[in-house]
C-alpha cells in the first residue's frame, strides 16, 4: 500500500492519496472497501478515483496540525454516496475484503520556509538551474520537489508532472531545469515522471489551489508540444517528507506525510530571431 498526505502552506485542507498494489500491480478496492482518513476532529473517505487503477484521493480539513490515521474500511453505503439512486435500498454487499482493517499513521514534518527564490524565476535554456535555499529543520526528514509543467508552442499544449529528489534537508539545492523540461526530439525523456498516487496527490493540490478550476486530468502527461521549444509555466512544490508508520498487517509499501510550499518559474525557449 502507498499512502501519502500533504499539507500545503496556503491550503487549509490536507491532500490525502492512497493506492493499493498486489505483486507490484495496482488493484482497485471494490465492493465497498474504501480508504478512510481521519484526524481527531475530522474524517473523510477517499472517494475520488485517480487516473490510474487503485489510486484514490480526498481532501481532509486540518483545523490544527495533527497526525492522520488512514485505514481501509468497509462502508458499502457511504462508498456509493455519489450515485443518484437509493443506494441504501438497492446495493450488493459482498462483505469486507482482505485489506479491511489495515491501517497506517501519517505524521507531518515541520513546514518549509523558502528563502530564495522568492519571486518567479525566468529561464531560457534547459541547461539553466534554479538555486533553492530554505530554512533546514535538521530532523532527518527527506526532501522532494514535485513540478507541474504546462508548455505551449502557440499551437499545441503539453502538460505533465515530474519529481526530483532533493539530497538533504540542509537548506540548499541546485535544481537542474533538464530534470524538469525535456526535448522530445532527443527520444524518450529520462525525466522522473510522477506516477500513480503521487500524481493523484499533485492533481488534488493543484485543484485546491485553483479552487476547482482545473481539468480533472491536468497533470496526466499530455505531450503534444515539444517542451524544449515552448514556453512553459512551471510550478515547483518543494516538499519535506516524513515516513509514517504502518500497522503490522503490511509488509511492504510506503506511508508519508509531507509539508509543501511553491515556487514558480517560467521557461521560454531561446529564439535566435528575438532581440
Amino acid at each position: 500500500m502507498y499512502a501519502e498526505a500533504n499539507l500545503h502552506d496556503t491550503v487549509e485542507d490536507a491532500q490525502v492519496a492512497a493506492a493499493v498494489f498486489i505483486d507490484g500491480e495496482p488493484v482497485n478496492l471494490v465492493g465497498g472497501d474504501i480508504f478512510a482518513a481521519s484526524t481527531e476532529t475530522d474524517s473523510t473517505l477517499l472517494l475520488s478515483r485517480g487516473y490510474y487503477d487503485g489510486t484514490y484521493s480526498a481532501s481532509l480539513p486540518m483545523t490544527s496540525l495533527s497526525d492522520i490515521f488512514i485505514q481501509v474500511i468497509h462502508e458499502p453505503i457511504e462508498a456509493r454516496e455519489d450515485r443518484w439512486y437509493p443506494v441504501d435500498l438497492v446495493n450488493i454487499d459482498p462483505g469486507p475484503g482482505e485489506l479491511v482493517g489495515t491501517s497506517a499513521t501519517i505524521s507531518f514534518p515541520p513546514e518549509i520556509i523558502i528563502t530564495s527564490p522568492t519571486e518567479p524565476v525566468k529561464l531560457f535554456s534547459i541547461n539553466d538551474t534554479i538555486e533553492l535555499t530554505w530554512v533546514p529543520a535538521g530532523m532527518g526528514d527527506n526532501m522532494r520537489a514535485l513540478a507541474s509543467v504546462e508548455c505551449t508552442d502557440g499551437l499545441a499544449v503539453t502538460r505533465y508532472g515530474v519529481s526530483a529528489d532533493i539530497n538533504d534537508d540542509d537548506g540548499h539545492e541546485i535544481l537542474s531545469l533538464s530534470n524538469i523540461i525535456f526535448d522530445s526530439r532527443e527520444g524518450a525523456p529520462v525525466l522522473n515522471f510522477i506516477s500513480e498516487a503521487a500524481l493523484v496527490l499533485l492533481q488534488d493540490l493543484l485543484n485546491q489551489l485553483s479552487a476547482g478550476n482545473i481539468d480533472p486530468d491536468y497533470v496526466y502527461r499530455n505531450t503534444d508540444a515539444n517542451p524544449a521549444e515552448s514556453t512553459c509555466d512551471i510550478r515547483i512544490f518543494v516538499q519535506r517528507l516524513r515516513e509514517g508508520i504502518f500497522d503490522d498487517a503490511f509488509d511492504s509499501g510506503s506511508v508519508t506525510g509531507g509539508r509543501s510550499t511553491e515556487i514558480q518559474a517560467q521557461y521560454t525557449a531561446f529564439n535566435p530571431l528575438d532581440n
Partner: protein
Amino acid sequence: MKTAMRTLIVALLYLQTHAVLADRMQLDINYLLARFDAGGNDEFSSNKAIAIRHNYFFRDWLASDLSLLVTDKAYDDTRQDVVGYYRAALQSQAILFGMKLRHKAKSPYEAYGRLGLQYWRTELEVEEYFNASIPGGTVTADDSGYGYYIGIGGAHYITDSLTIQLEFLHMKQLDLFEGSSSQPFDLGINALSVGLGYRF
C-alpha cells in the same frame, strides 16, 4: 397530498366510467420515444413506450382523458466508481387520469392539450460488477405512487373518424422510494409520441 390526489383520481375515474355510456368517444394508441430524468447525475438512454388512451367529449372542446402507459426498460450509462462498475435501469407503468382540451380548426387539423394525475408503478434495477473474484449481480426494488402529467399535441384527420397524432408529453412521478430509502427522488419522463386515433 396523497389523499387529495387519490380523491381526484377516483372522481375522474367515476366521470370516465359513466361517460362511456355516451357516444362521443375517441380511442388512441400511441408509440412514444421517452427519456427518463431522475434528477441526479443519471444519463438515461432513450427508450420506447406505448400508451392506450380513451377520451369522452363532454363538449366539442373538452374531454375526459384516461390512459394506460407502459415503458420499456431505460438504461443509465455504465459507470465506475470506488465500489466497482454499475448500471441502473428503470421501467415504469402508469395510469393517467385527466382532462383533454382541444381546438379544432376548419381544416382537418386540431390542436390539443392534456393534463391530469397519474398513478405509477416503477421498478429500479441495478447491475453491479466488482472484479473477476467478486462478480456482483443484479438487485431490484419497486415502488408506486402518484404524480402528474401534461401534454400538448396536434392531430390530422385522415377521415372523419380516423386521426394521426403527434404529441409531447411530460410526466412527473413524485417521491420514488420515499419511506423505504433516505435517498428518494422524483422521476421526470419526457416523451415524443406518434399515434392513431379513432372517433366513435
